[in-house]
């Protein structure tokens, strides 16, 4: 099965590559030819896991990017004076780093002009090297590991926030709203947990809040009672735990059983609906953070179009991949070229308003002032309560209102009329 599937995809890729080669050679000689409508085919790739445990998230990401490409085709964009058709290549990396690099190479060989993805940090980081060598711009809508944009690759961008912005976000929210005097910080001794816990501790200390010496478990710890009992003796006002939901759930449950009154706060690893199952009623009232904005806070126009096209609501990162694909298209329009070398500089200095708000990139390719969302658990469901943006805390209702208001001029498949006007003076 796997073999025949692989063979098929390989053949398909080979044909695609062959077609691509033809497609690119043809316009050159035919440029002077008398034929009236010269056409251009631009390939945009998307990679995410379409099989396995998080296949639903992969499909959600893919749909976001697919919607952007389809809208661009409907808008009949002209690039370099030619009718442009965007072709969407969706690939499955199975959330596996090894498959991720294979698929990345496949897209490079198919001569895509740009890539949206991958979903996971674990697959995005190894794949980024391949795109970088090929000089193909790649925008991730969901990989939050800081390392992705710390490699110095000019082609790598991301429209979602980084893990190391998350710690400061939840810590500053905690400091501003709960005003704790003493905070206990616990982590699970993994790169993720320790990293986010360090950021939280740093931010809290900067706000002159006392932090107890770090307590540590590991990523399999289920018995937190000894640590929690010790903390109970110190009577902290808040507890932050850097780790996953599988360990965070028991932590929360045991904390409440022991009568620890503090506010519990977690990073995105434990900011899942699974927490209600793991901690039961004790989960109510916990605070946690996620990178980006919740899909329901995305631009209404996008949400409606998505629902109409796919007959489902966006799950998680679809607004971000939608923006990612739109950014690629917008940069191509600005550069009036689908040549990665030509439109990459435009992408780097782009200033764009997408479904997730204003997007501009910093020198590393990270989104400037990326949003973080703070959630609280209410009656077994995570509900967004605040958005942190550029160190500012915005109540979620206000943010949602603001997002709904300027919806009209916000996204829209890049208004065809002003675009040529912008291009004209540049040429």
């Amino acid at each position: 099965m796997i073999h025949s599937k692989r063979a098929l995809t390989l053949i398909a890729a080979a044909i695609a590559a062959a077609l691509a080669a033809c497609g690119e050679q043809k316009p050159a000689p035919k440029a002077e030819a008398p034929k009236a409508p010269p056409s251009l085919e631009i390939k945009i790739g998307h990679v995410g896991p379409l099989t396995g445990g998080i296949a639903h998230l992969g499909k959600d990401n893919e749909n976001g990017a697919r919607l952007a490409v389809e809208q661009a085709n409907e808008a009949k964009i002209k690039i370099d004076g030619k009718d442009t058709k965007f072709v969407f290549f969706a690939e499955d990396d199975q959330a596996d780093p090894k498959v991720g690099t294979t698929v990345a190479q496949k897209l490079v060989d198919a001569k895509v002009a740009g890539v949206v993805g991958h979903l996971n940090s674990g697959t995005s980081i190894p794949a980024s090297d391949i795109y970088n060598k090929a000089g193909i711009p790649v925008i991730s809508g969901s990989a939050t590991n800081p390392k992705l944009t710390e490699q110095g690759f000019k082609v790598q961008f991301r429209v979602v926030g980084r893990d190391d912005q998350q710690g400061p976000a939840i810590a500053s929210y905690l400091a501003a709203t709960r005003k704790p005097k003493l905070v206990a910080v616990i982590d699970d001794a993994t790169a993720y947990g320790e990293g986010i816990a360090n950021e939280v501790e740093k931010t809290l200390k900067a706000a002159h809040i006392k932090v107890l010496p770090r307590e540590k478990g590991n990523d399999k710890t289920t018995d937190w009672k000894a640590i929690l009992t010790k903390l109970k003796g110190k009577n902290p006002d808040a507890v932050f735990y850097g780790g996953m939901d599988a360990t965070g759930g028991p932590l929360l449950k045991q904390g409440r059983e022991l009568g620890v009154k503090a506010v519990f706060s977690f990073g995105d690893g434990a900011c899942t609906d699974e927490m209600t199952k793991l901690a039961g009623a004790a989960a109510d009232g916990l605070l946690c953070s996620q990178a980006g904005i919740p899909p329901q806070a995305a631009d209404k126009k996008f949400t409606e179009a998505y629902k109409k096209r796919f007959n489902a609501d966006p799950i998680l990162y679809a607004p971000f991949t939608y923006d990612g694909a739109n950014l690629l298209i917008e940069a191509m329009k600005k550069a009036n070229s689908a040549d990665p070398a030509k439109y990459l500089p435009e992408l780097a200095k782009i200033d764009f308003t997408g479904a997730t708000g204003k997007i501009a990139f910093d020198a590393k390719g990270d989104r400037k002032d990326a949003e973080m969302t703070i959630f609280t658990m209410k009656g077994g469901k995570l509900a967004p309560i605040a958005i942190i943006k550029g160190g500012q805390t915005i109540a979620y209702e206000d943010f949602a209102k603001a997002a709904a208001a300027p919806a009209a001029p916000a996204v829209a498949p890049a208004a065809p009329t002003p675009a040529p006007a912008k291009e004209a003076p540049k040429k």
Partner: protein
Amino acid sequence: MDIFLQQMINGVTLGAVYAVVALGYTMVYGIIQLINFAHGEVVMIGAMVAFTVITALAAGGMPPLAVVLVGTACAVPVCMALGYLMERLAYRPLRRAPRLAPLITAIGLSIILQHLAMLVWTRNVIAFPQIIQTEIYTVAGATITSVQLAIVALCVAMMAGLAWLVYRTRLGTAMRATAQNPQVAGLMGVNIDRVIAATFLIGAALGAVAGVMVGTYYGVAQYTMGSLLGLKAFAAAVLGGIGNIPGAMVGGVLLGVVEALGAGYIGELTDLCHFAGLSQTLAEHCAAESHFVLFGSNYQDVFAFLVLIAVLVLRPSGLLGERVGDRS
């Protein structure tokens, strides 16, 4: 003081579970001098089977306690069957083989069982349905939950039952005779194969109950949960003197208490800021941070093994002494 009391309560609960699991190790060792490393996996399978049954029944309108009891009632026979099969298929053919062979088999079995469980119940952490409303009682500033009380009570009951079985019944007499000298016991009309199989069955049943207790206590289960639990219970068995049934009970409880107190107090005991006067740089650091902890609570899991090493060095036969027949 209430903190100390709380740590003791935590430790005794944990220790009671260790003790019940340790009994499974010590009984088997006492009779055939085999360290059954797959016993931790039996505990895990017990938890998983109970999880499946409890999840299936949780939606129906049965009272929560009954659901958990049914879950346990399903887990026990499954684990007993597993224990019997292990003995029959993996250990009995090797009974006359050099001692290393069954030991390696035990490790192999443990890996096989773990991966079978992974295939059946996935590699994800499974959330145990939280159906029992936990009552929380406060005693002198420390809290104790109804689940903790139930665990301790059950463990005591099981240990008492086992003690009665071993010292007051014909089967128990046969077990003790086999432990002392299987050949002679056989000559006296004891069916050794049956006695050994019975030992495995009893150990597995205890393990299954322990698995359900761990699952409901922490609310989570995973296919790897048996390995560390098993190792710690083994350490408890050695601590009390392997092969010695009261020893496993004492060792288990002691280990649980040592672990809880260790994790609770090591941070403060190794806080170098108590000795800030000794060094200039240390004093400066302490003034800024107020703590300089040498060993934190991340050493929690290490205590069981530190105790194991200390016992092996200072008192190789355990606290209450090894109790195995003379065989060489």
